[in-house]
């Protein structure tokens, strides 16, 4: 029993080891540039906060054995929606609330289609991705700059104290860890990912949980879109293009296999940080071009998937 417990921990213990190796390696390599310093770490959190927020929602969906391809498009749509509404002199908090509500509502619709039509999640969210990306273009084809006292105050606070975007990410992370571990909803998500049939027979509200899951993912990516507006003081329909891939990669590298049922939110934080560290290393290196990020992420993804497969087959043989 004890053995099996430690075996289940291997993927995300490896993830932490990889993060430490990367971070330590970069700290030694770039010690003259002060890589190992508080500002660089804060920037790491700030630059990856919207990816992180989207990845939190994605973790829940993947834990249940589903997938949500609409998150990147949702970031673009909500960011441009907030910017457009504020351009029409809507107060910032109301604009943000509208964006969050629209995101949650849309996720809810996707969840309902997945539940009632029994179509594969990747297909429904694929169509959803087209739709939301299109809606963003309908709101505005151009990127819109936000000029408002509220945003000035936020960026001022971010500069002087601590980035607001990073705070939102960390707060969402704590809430998500609580929800996943200590609420009936969280337990139902794990149960569905483990075996949907069994979860149904156990009397869990499988249908309701599924709709809730995609609503949650919609909310998280809408929040990520709002965070994007804080980060860039603008909204753009093309924001978050292909971000769903990074989010999925972060979740998988964080030790949650796409088959669902196993994994945790903390692992996703590590996954996001690993992607961020790779990006930062490439920026620090200066001579490496941005496409090396994609190749490095692909190689890491391969390594983790092979590791998970290897562990699975070992467990199956026992």
């Amino acid at each position, binding site marked *: 029993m004890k053995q099996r417990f430690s075996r289940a921990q291997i993927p995300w213990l490896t993830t932490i080891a990889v993060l430490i190796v990367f971070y330590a390696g970069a700290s030694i390599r770039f010690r003259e540039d002060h890589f190992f310093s508080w500002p660089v770490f804060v920037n790491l959190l700030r630059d990856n906060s919207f990816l992180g927020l989207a990845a939190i929602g994605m973790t829940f969906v993947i834990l249940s054995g589903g997938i949500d391809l609409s998150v990147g498009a949702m970031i673009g749509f909500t960011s441009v929606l907030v910017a457009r509404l504020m351009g029409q002199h809507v107060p910032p908090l109301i604009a943000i609330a509208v964006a969050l509500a629209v995101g949650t509502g849309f996720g809810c619709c996707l969840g309902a289609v997945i539940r009632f039509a029994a179509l594969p999640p990747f297909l429904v969210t694929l169509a959803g991705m087209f739709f939301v990306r299109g809606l963003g273009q309908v709101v505005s084809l151009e990127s819109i700059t936000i000029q408002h006292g509220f945003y000035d105050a936020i960026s001022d606070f971010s500069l002087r104290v601590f980035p607001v975007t990073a705070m939102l990410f960390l707060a969402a992370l704590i809430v998500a860890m609580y929800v996943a571990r200590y609420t009936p909803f969280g337990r139902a998500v794990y149960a569905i990912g483990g075996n949907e049939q069994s979860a149904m027979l156990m009397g869990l509200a499988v249908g309701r949980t599924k709709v809730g899951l995609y609503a949650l993912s919609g909310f998280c990516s809408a929040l990520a879109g709002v965070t994007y507006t804080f980060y860039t003081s603008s909204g753009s329909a093309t924001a978050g293009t292909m971000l769903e891939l990074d989010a999925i990669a972060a979740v998988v590298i964080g030790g949650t296999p796409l088959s669902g049922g196993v994994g945790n939110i903390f692992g996703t934080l590590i996954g996001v940080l690993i992607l961020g560290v790779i990006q930062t290393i490439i920026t620090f290196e200066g001579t490496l*071009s941005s*496409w090396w990020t994609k190749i490095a992420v692909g190689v890491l993804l391969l390594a983790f998937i092979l590791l998970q497969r290897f562990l699975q087959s070992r467990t199956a043989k026992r």
Partner: protein
Amino acid sequence: MNDIPRRLVPAWLRSLLWPLIALAGLLLFNLFFTEGFARLTIRDGHVYGSLVDILKLSSRVMLVSLGMTLVIATAGVDLSVGAVVAIAGSVAAKLIVEHQASLPLALAATLGLCSALGAWNGVLVAWIGVQPIVATLILMVAGRGIAQLLTDGQIITVDNPGFSFIAGGHFLGLPSPVTIVAVMLMITVLLTRGTAMGLFIESVGNNETASRFAGVNARAVKLFVYTFTGLCAGMAGLIEASDINAADANNAGPNIELDAILAVVIGGTSLNGGRFNLPGSLVGALIIQTLTTAIKMRGVPVEYTLVVKAVVVLAVCLLQSEELRQRLWQRRASA
């Protein structure tokens, strides 16, 4: 009521019926209500017009959807085709421009490499046992990076009349991409329906364990379908690069995996595997392109294209959902 189409329509056409009706409806609507849609002109022995444009523009998605149909029939999916399209263009352009390779050699090398990339997906899925979405996600993420690495992030311009002919030439009055699609369709149909391959693919998609016990080499079948998809994506990449006489690793094949999957689904191939319909997928690709062209020609602002496309696609998927039909049926019966 369900019997009428069944009696009137020959068996081979039956599965194609709904996609064809949808396409015919779209075409008829546009013939009557979209100005200039039906106009065909013949210049220098070549046919021009929006109908021909639709055929030409959809050729890339049609090619990719041929391979994708077979992959989906084995209950898999290939997300990496867009990345392979980008790699194909980059490799061909690099070979021709920087290494002065002869055209046939460059094309053969490119297609060989793309087949190898497809085979890599196949090995991951069949031998390592990774789920198809994840296995092909790796190449989807890394592949575009590799293409950008090859071209150094630059657009490589190709000045080669033979290369331009792939997309710009004409064959029997029709654009050559259309001919390529027709030939590939014929080869694929012969390969799957003329031999037992199609049966093997369907049996693996239906029940892999059972087909393995029945003596079907499931791994080889999967390796074949992913390799074939790589080849198809490579051809699509060559057409794309030839069309603009350049390789653009950053923007080649955008969303082509999505369009191809949608074409396959619209064409009546079940995402659960076990059944496939090659002509249906081509009709699906034509429906998507007709829709896009019609939206453009009717003067609908370009920003609405994606929304309309998404709504149509979702509607088609919902129509095909057995579960939803049953639910609605039950509700009506109980009311």
